């Protein structure tokens, strides 16, 4: 017989898995300063770390949403899709890679073309999607960027290209490489027509994209700490057989060497571009 009698029922502890507060997916860690950030907060900050101003990668549609005026954008050439001209097979089939990329990104290819407005300036804008096979440029990316340039030529609207790419797409071989030539030929026409072209380089922009249209803007501007270069850091390390110093090929390094016009934080991008568009638009009467 017990000395004390329990009148109330004992405290019921919840099952093991229910005891944890579900935080998975709610928070993210800044890769630069290790600060833990609430994802909702990060969205409100244009995906820039509130503590160290690290710029997280954002996808093409988000980019366009941040850059352009709301509700004004109209996508074009979204239907273009890659074929497999080389019938390229490595460890995976190229069509399987494409299918997976389309599924995971919701984009048909690694660039999204829109006509829209930026603080009231009508523009043509192409934003690259890094999650789509590393933002690599094959025939479709080359074709869509060329068509964006042609849209600019037809409408005389300024062109903005936001790059994020590992370079040419191996799986389309030399056809990928030749897209650089195709785009540069179209850009030459834009240049001669004196239609403004602003190139925005984001993390990372390397290889054939840097060595063609990304470096041919009237302005080449970049987000802070973006990796920008011709060869990738690993290739350079193999060539020189040394470890590269911190900050090599980052935006700041390029500005220091005179290879970029400006580093523009994400939250200032709209204002920066808009002011330059004022400068570049209808300036021809100024000299008369």
């Amino acid at each position: 017989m017990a000395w004390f009698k329990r009148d109330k029922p004992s405290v019921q502890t919840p099952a093991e898995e229910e005891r944890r507060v579900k935080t998975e997916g709610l928070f993210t860690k800044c890769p630069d300063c290790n600060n833990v950030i609430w994802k909702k907060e990060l969205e409100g900050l244009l995906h820039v770390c509130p503590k160290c101003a690290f710029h997280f990668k954002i996808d093409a549609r988000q980019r366009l949403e941040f850059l352009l005026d709301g509700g004004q954008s109209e996508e074009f050439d979204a239907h273009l899709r890659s074929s497999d001209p080389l019938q390229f097979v490595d460890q995976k089939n190229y069509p399987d890679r494409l299918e997976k990329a389309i599924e995971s990104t919701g984009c048909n290819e690694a660039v999204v073309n829109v006509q829209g407005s930026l603080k009231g300036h009508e523009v043509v804008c192409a934003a690259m999607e890094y999650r789509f096979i590393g933002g690599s440029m094959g025939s479709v990316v080359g074709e869509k960027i060329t068509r964006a340039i042609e849209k600019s030529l037809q409408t005389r609207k300024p062109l903005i290209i936001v790059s994020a790419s590992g370079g040419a797409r191996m799986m389309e071989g030399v056809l990928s490489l030749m897209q650089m030539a195709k785009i540069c030929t179209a850009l030459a026409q834009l240049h001669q027509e004196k239609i403004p072209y602003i190139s925005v380089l984001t993390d990372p922009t390397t290889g054939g994209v840097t060595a063609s249209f990304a470096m041919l803007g009237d302005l080449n501007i970049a987000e802070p700490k973006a990796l920008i270069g011709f060869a990738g850091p690993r290739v350079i390390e193999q060539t020189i057989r040394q470890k590269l110093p911190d900050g090599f090929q980052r935006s700041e390094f390029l500005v220091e060497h005179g290879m970029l016009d400006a580093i523009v934080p994400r939250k200032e991008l709209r204002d920066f571009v808009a002011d330059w568009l004022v400068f570049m638009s209808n300036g021809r009467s100024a000299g008369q």
Partner: protein
Amino acid sequence: MMSKFEELTELKERAEALPPEATEAIAELTLRITQLEESIGKENATAWDQVQLSRHENRPYTLDFIERLFTSFRPIHGDRRFADDTAIVGGMALLEDQPVMVIGQQKGRNTKERIYRNYGMAKPEGYRKAVRLMQIAEKFNRPILTFIDTPGAYPGTGAEARGQAEAIAHNLRTMAELQVPIVATVLGEGGSGGALALSLADRILMLRHSIYSVISPESCSAILWKDQAHTQQAAHALRLTAPDLEHFKVVDEVVPEPPEGAHSDWDAAAALVKESLLRNLGELQVQSAQQRLRGRSEKFRRIGEFVE
């Protein structure tokens, strides 16, 4: 090539299981298999064979061709910005008494030369020298002949700091704007962006055993297979041979080589290049500058395959 061969073999096997009325079909298939086998033996060496031929150490290099194609080659140096890049040579020359601007990538034949030429890998100053020479040609209305033979643009720290990507990009746009005729000839290795920087031409000619690729088979294997064991497979997958590039309409003409390859007879190889150069240049020179610019732009505009 192989897959088609296997396909036909399999078809033949199936056909043999058929009743006698299929004998005609079998005979036809057997004939085609023999034809394919013969073509593999002769013309169609494997892609990897082609890669090795394009890098053959006795293959004539740019200066070897210049010596045989032109008279009065007068090289000039430097980009007037930073340095002279010895991986790119250039200057005026006479092609059958006609003044032309010659610009090409130069490899070295022994260790000392290879280091001096940086293995034919140009730095930004090389591309800036090239564009400076092209602008001289434009000013004095002389055709430009470029020669391509490079593993690629140099991937080093200095080259990055001085804007390798910008230098190549600037060349591409400038070449798209030049009014004078431009003919590019791929002599050996056409390595990625480094080769492209001299290729935005009215005509691209390619020697039969040269290659042109977005990436070297070695790097492609390292990236896609994560090892070096699949280099040959990568070479095949990349479709980098001269006939491949002609098929994709990137190259306008495949220039034949002497039966044993350009390395076996430099004079004969140069004579074949000269014939092709003169003919193509002649065709371009009867066009107006406007026609050439339109043709050049349309040539590149068409490149690419996709589903609309």
